[in-house]
């Protein structure tokens, strides 16, 4: 779907509590255009829980059940079950959760909901930190990134949530990025046409969290994909395929930009360049990206 054909209806209202340049509202605008009015969101503790603004008003125009941090997928399971009994199964039930509430504290509920074949869409908007509490490391934080709890740079590599989801063999899973709204829109639309548990993870570059200037949210997302640091793919009926620039990279038609191009725009990686270039850690990052690509290319060829 081309941007000009996106529905005009807005479900994210202007005047929210989001930071200027926020990838959550940016992504959610597109997601809700694809989902439409017939949607119930459940949102655990995360930035978006706060972005809604405060009682008695909300900045969103779809029904939202805010829920405890670890419980989003479980609450969604309850909503889906109730709608089934009410004969309203055509309503989209969607979780909109951050990486903290997905990779870490919310992982159990998510795994259980998928294993039960719950008919819902789980969207993780991934800014790679516990952003709402002020930028602490999560299981999604990449290696060497500064956060308030990994002050000299994270010592561990991040989890590959995609692999965890794929191990559940859901009918549909995909990665996306706020910088590619048409790809995101299409994926959400496709997911909602499939019955069963669906998972979409959206890379969400966060200006205060990644330490970059607030106008560059889209630019950072593009660079993540163009350097290969973030892979766009879809998994449908057991088959994995790449999308957009990631597809071109996989087919050898696009030479990924050097990952330093992405790293050096982010203050959270500035210690890798100053006072001098940290070749050891940057090479470790590159190596992990290379391994990840190898692994996914193998999966795609199966």
């Amino acid at each position, binding site marked *: 779907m081309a941007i000009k054909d996106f529905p005009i209806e807005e479900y994210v209202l202007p005047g929210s509590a989001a930071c200027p340049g926020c990838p959550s509202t940016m992504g959610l605008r597109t997601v809700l255009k694809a989902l439409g009015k017939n949607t*119930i969101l459940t949102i655990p503790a995360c930035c978006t829980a706060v972005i809604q603004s*405060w009682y008695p008003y909300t900045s969103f125009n779809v029904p939202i059940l805010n829920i405890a941090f670890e*419980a989003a997928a479980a609450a969604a399971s*309850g909503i889906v*079950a*109730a709608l089934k009994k009410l004969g309203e199964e055509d309503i989209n039930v969607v979780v909109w959760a951050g990486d903290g509430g997905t990779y870490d504290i919310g992982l159990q509920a998510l795994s*259980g909901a998928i294993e039960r074949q719950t008919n819902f869409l789980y969207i993780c908007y991934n800014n790679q930190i516990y952003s709402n509490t002020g930028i602490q490391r999560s299981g999604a934080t990449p290696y060497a990134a500064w956060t308030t709890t990994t002050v000299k740079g994270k010592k561990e590599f991040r989890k590959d949530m995609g692999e965890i989801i794929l191990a559940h063999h859901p009918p549909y899973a995909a990665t996306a990025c706020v910088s590619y709204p048409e790809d995101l829109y299409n994926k959400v639309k496709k997911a909602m046409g499939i019955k069963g548990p669906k998972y979409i993870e959206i890379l969400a570059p966060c200006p205060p969290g990644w330490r970059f200037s607030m106008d560059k949210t889209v630019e950072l997302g593009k660079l993540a994909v163009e350097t290969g640091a973030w892979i766009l793919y879809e998994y449908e009926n057991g088959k994995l395929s790449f999308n957009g620039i990631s597809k071109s990279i996989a087919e050898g038609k696009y030479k990924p930009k050097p990952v330093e191009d992405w790293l050096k725009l982010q203050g959270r990686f500035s210690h890798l360049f100053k006072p001098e270039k940290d070749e050891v850690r940057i090479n470790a990052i590159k190596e992990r990206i290379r391994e990840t690509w190898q692994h996914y290319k193998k999966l795609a060829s199966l």
Partner: protein
Amino acid sequence: MKTVIDTGNYIAARAALMAKPKVVAAYPITPQTTIVEGIAKYVENGELDAEYICVESEHSAMSACIGAAATGVRTFTATSAHGLLLMHEMLHWAALARLPIVMCNVNRAIGPGWNIWCDENDSIAQRDTGWLQFYCSSNQEVFDTVIQAYKIAENEKVLLPAMVNLGGFILSHTSLPVKVPEQKEIDEFLPPYKPKWRLDVNNPITHGNIIFPDDYYRIRYDMQLAQNNSKKIIKEVAKEWKEKFGTYHGDLVEVYKCDNADLVILAMGAIGAEAKVAVDKMQREGLKVGLLRIRVLRPFPDEEIIRIAKQCNKLLVIDRNISVGNEGALASETRACLKDRVEDANVYGFIAGLGGKDVTYNDIEKMCKMVINKKAGRIEWYGLG
């Protein structure tokens, strides 16, 4: 009306069946598991038209019930001990969200070490959550109370979730005869659920976003008013049930042979049942001992306790729980409620039955004799040694 002989757990499952919840989300834990199994059978054979979510933890069980109740349907779950503790956060959530979920809790001791027997620390630790709390002393009471709980909880003047407690292995696994009304009579007593707020795509509200102190304070106050309102409604519902179905277990309390009593026992749950036997025996022997069985702990039945204390100023409170560092919950709350209102009341707090330690009518008689013979202090740990 028919008579069914079954365990407290299967009776609870039957009551849940007849209350017609649309979503059940549950997780197994000893000694609640047969409730969950009972419901699974009803769903699989088509008797219960509900979505049964076999969740992956008790925290998720309550979260799923919250999701379902917020969408506008009647829900049910059951748990015990560690499961109840694990859902603690979501118990608070359900009450603050004003969702009339009904749950059976089979009282069991908390570990470590693993102790599966009857102990009320689990539900006592949930007193502050805003849930209504019932303590059942018979399988009939379990059946009646589960259905009554829905009627009370869903009343627009209440709108708070309700916990129906039954003693692990004592009630849960003991078969007793229970009078079960016809489904259509239950339907007349308990009409279909009408949610007072819900997630509705035609009315897109947000529930639970940021709220500032003044507004939060007002919600808390309204919850307090709701529990106060529930006192009257609990009485009305118990009376209505008695008129329709013939069984009655008191309302907030059950006053048992307290006329002219020199000593009144306050007890809950399984010990409450045993205390009746003890009272009968002691009265046959000429001792004027009565029982105020506490059926409802939340809302706290202060008026009823004050009334009894004015008649009889010696109260023997048996707690199958302990707030380590202070005393048993019922004793503590009884003392607090009587202070400045019944000045000459003497409250003797007995801790008994922790970890499933058996409490027989002989034990209760011994406790009474300790008080009568002035050998009881302010707090007694019965049977230690």
